[in-house]
């Protein structure tokens, strides 16, 4: 459309002295100067950032210059909008969300009557199509989820500890019967698994020497603690954090996550905190070679509770 054909437009014009068009600042000249200076400071700071970046300056210098630059610039622009631009107040009408009655009736008719009527004419087809959609959803969801991971099976009830497994520390060094002084504590793993995810996450066991004689932590565990050694699963029975703190004088194991406390000489019974069960104890023996070994696996699942947790195995 060329300008000759244009019909004249009736513009609404604000008079220059219209109070709606006035800035908020009491002294626009001063405000303008200040805002200009603030924005200039921002630009200066941004240049400073470019220099700092070029010199590979320390992080706080780069962050300081960039942050100050952006902040000053933003402050200037906002202040311009807030103090020097017309503040109104202006008004606009809301159109209601609701359509008029006629529109609503026609819309509902199209959905319910026309659509529903046409679909309802073939009820059997509609049911089959619905069944198809449901089947698709089920078929889609199940294999997708199934591909995401193996079934748990009995995995959570098992560790790698077996009869005769040698206890090693995090560097892979086997623990000899005289290696640890009374009061000493070390995290041990099944030999060969000390650097694996599973060894660290599941099999991790805390070995404590509480004396020199055999330690009996509970009835039926007479042979489990030779030469003053006791070994417990290091996985907290609350949420599976490593029970990493040993209070030597009180002979307590403490979980740093939620402060569950377990008595070392009493079968790791929880005496405080949210842990519901004792830490499972690993039965030990001293081999003929003088190395500490496991008599077998744990007698129950290690770590936090879950649905099909086994208590003896």
């Amino acid at each position, binding site marked *: 459309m060329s300008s000759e054909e*244009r019909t*004249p437009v009736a513009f609404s014009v604000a008079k220059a002295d219209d109070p709606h*068009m006035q800035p908020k600042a*009491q002294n626009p000249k001063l405000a303008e100067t200040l805002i200009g200076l603030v924005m200039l400071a921002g630009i200066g700071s941004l240049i400073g950032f470019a220099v700092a970046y070029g010199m590979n300056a320390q992080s706080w210098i780069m962050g300081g210059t960039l*942050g100050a630059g*952006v902040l000053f610039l933003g402050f200037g622009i906002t202040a311009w909008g807030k103090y020097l631009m017309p503040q109104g107040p202006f008004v606009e009408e*809301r159109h209601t969300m609701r359509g008029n009655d006629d529109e609503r009736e026609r819309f509902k008719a199209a959905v319910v009557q026309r659509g529903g009527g046409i679909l309802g004419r073939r009820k059997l087809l509609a049911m089959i199509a619905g069944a198809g959609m449901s089947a698709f959803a089920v078929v889609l969801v199940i294999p997708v989820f199934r591909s995401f991971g193996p079934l748990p099976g009995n995995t959570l009830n098992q560790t790698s500890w077996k009869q005769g497994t040698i206890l090693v520390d995090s560097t892979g060094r086997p623990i000899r019967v005289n290696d640890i002084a009374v009061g000493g504590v070390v995290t041990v793993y099944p030999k060969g698994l000390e650097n694996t995810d599973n060894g660290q996450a599941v099999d991790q066991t805390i070995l404590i020497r509480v004396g020199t004689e055999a330690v009996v932590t509970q009835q039926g565990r007479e042979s489990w603690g030779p030469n003053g050694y006791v070994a417990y699963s290091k996985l907290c029975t609350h949420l599976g954090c490593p029970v990493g703190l040993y209070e030597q004088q009180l002979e307590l194991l403490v979980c740093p996550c939620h402060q569950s406390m377990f008595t070392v000489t009493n079968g790791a019974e929880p005496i405080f905190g*949210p842990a519901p069960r004792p830490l499972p104890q690993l039965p030990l023996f001293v081999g003929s070679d003088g190395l500490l070994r496991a008599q077998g696996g744990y007698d129950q699942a290690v770590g936090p509770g879950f649905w099909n947790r086994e208590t003896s195995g």
Partner: protein
Amino acid sequence: MAEKTKQQAKSSFGPVGKALDELDDRLGIAKGGRSLLDKIFPDHWSFMLGEVALYSFVILIGTGIFLTLFYVPSSTVVVYHGSYLPLVGQKVSQAYATSIDLTFSVRCGLLMRQMHHWACDIFLAAMVVHMARVFFTGAFRKPRELNYVLGSTLLILGIVEGFLGYSLPDDLVSGTGIRIAFSIIESIPVIGSYIAFFVFGGNYPGPQIIPRFFIIHVLLIPLIMLGMVTAHLFLLVHQKHTQFPGKGRTETNVVGTAMFPVFAAKATGFLFMVGGVITLLAGFAQINPIWQFGPYDASKISYAVQPDWYMGWLDGALRIWPAWEWTGFGYTWPLEIFIPGVVVPGLIFAVVQGWPVLERRYTKDNEIHNLLDLPRNRPKRTAAGAAVFALVTMMFIASSTDVIANYFHITLEAVLWSMRILVVVVPIITFFLTHKICQELQASQGAGKRKRANVVTRTPDGEYLSAPAEPRPGDEHVDLEPEPVPDFLEDPVVVRERKELLSPVSFTGVRNVVR
């Protein structure tokens, strides 16, 4: 109209006008474009909170893209040979090694990482405060229930997204958090271990976590959030903003400043300001120093490490819940995890998200509401909201029982039992206290407004007379009657020289114009 000026005769408004004509020929933008430029934004400081969230989200995306260019999401063990000397020669995961490298070897890397982390903390805080504003002023009422649900879902997604991101560097502390998440999922009756295995790709930790969490963190959830943010903003524009009652403001109009150029300038500047503050924080305030924590090893742990603030309330619940594991029907019911880890947060979010429906069922109010409530005028709602905040705050404080015990030299047991009691008692007290305060505020005339002094004079006869004092400058502020946005100014240059037409400058520096 008589105002047929030179400007209008030329009327193409120069090259910009020409360009807009061409665009309108093709896209038909003139009508919608003009009404968008005229869109009115009501002015209130609390409407800025959502903007903080939006702008930190923008910064999160920007800094996040930067980080993905250097980070390698892999659990493969490598020997570290980077520029951070204390780690050289150690076996670490590739994820951890590249996180350290992008921190120390990439120029600006540390700054970008810290910006990302700070922006996340601010994003979530801003969402919480924004939601509080919407809740306490009743902005969620019809017709905006859907937008409220969108927004509160964004908060939940934000928490999940933050947790996943915090896990990616594979440092000692992040791994402990994932371990706890695994245990929480595992605690769900019947299907828990299945879900845990599907989410983690096997037993904890397995090689899948890092690459899987990475793609969820950088693609899946951000995409969903971006879509929801867009929908949130679209609904905001479509339904128009709510406003507080005031002069000329009704249920059927919006009063404030125009989108262009005034609100646009303020918003652009504010985006920069939010970015500036986040950058300054990232420059000066260290956050998540993963190089100090060391690489993850499932059998190691650090002491007194707290999660990011938005996870604290969940951790607090787990901490104070009694050890209620129950074995029955041949199965284990880890209620000491399931209730505080799944049921409690689930209930809190259900109440928060379902509030518009609950309130409508209670008040039987099916009207359209565009004018906001003052919180004091809705004592029950305000009290309920305050109680939920009190509950979550108490849970948050409970996540520091060990630190509190250490710091104040009280026994852990005393702190634990105090928190167990406070977490129940404080929200109840808060509810009734807030309810009472709201009622008192309603009853007191002119609460929140500046009081006019009384001048007492004594006549020569000894008679005392009392009269209101002269108003202080600024008290006589009278709002203008709102008008539609004009098409253009008569002569914009004149504005600054017409000072004499204006009323005297007020005490507070705000010009008062009395019409």
